[in-house]
């Protein structure tokens, strides 16, 4: 069964450093998403992406964040200058189409720790 994959599974970085989290969505899916879950808190929507541009973004997704689909398979989340509060589990997801009825398939997550 096709699945969303994410690398790395864990990342430790120093405050102020740039990090890139990588995701490979399901191959025939057209919409891609990033979510994060700070320890002990809810899973929160960050951004959705379609046709090589951001479809929607939440208040959390500020100028420190960017997303890109650098090739036909990868989907990345970049944090330019990490802060302590960026420590969280980051989930990538993809769906075949857009809309609330569409199932979003999630990857296993990348746990980011900012020191």
């Amino acid at each position, binding site marked *: 069964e096709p699945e*969303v994959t994410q690398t790395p599974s864990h990342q430790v970085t120093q405050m102020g450093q740039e990090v890139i989290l990588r995701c490979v969505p399901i191959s025939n899916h057209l919409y891609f998403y990033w979510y994060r879950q700070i320890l002990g808190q809810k*899973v929160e929507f960050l951004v*959705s992406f379609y046709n090589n541009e951001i479809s929607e973004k*939440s208040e*959390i997704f500020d100028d420190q964040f960017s997303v890109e689909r650098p090739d036909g398979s990868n989907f990345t989340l970049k944090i330019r200058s990490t802060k302590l509060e960026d420590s969280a589990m980051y989930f990538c997801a993809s769906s075949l189409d857009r809309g609330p009825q569409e199932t979003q398939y999630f990857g*296993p997550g990348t746990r980011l720790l900012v020191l």
Partner: protein
Amino acid sequence: AQSVTQPDIHITVSEGASLELRCNYSYGATPYLFWYVQSPGQGLQLLLKYFSGDTLVQGIKGFEAEFKRSQSSFNLRKPSVHWSDAAEYFCAVAGASGGGADGLTFGKGTHLIIQP
């Protein structure tokens, strides 16, 4: 703004016993509701979803959920749990996350512990 509440942070159930995980939502229109499960080291896996029609929906792994509009609830049930059901369970609603339409709004999750 829409929201999802899962009142139980942890639930402990004996293997073979029945299970009900609670979920309450706040959403103005007809909600699109989901239950996801996350096993350790795994991604979020969809158990079931509700859009319209029959208010009792069947999912994978023997789970079902009932949509009750009058109670704004979408509780997850299983008649007999197995040790492999130990996981984190998330209720979610789609439609208007942070002002947009793409993102899911999740509850905080319920951690299910299975006693032998």
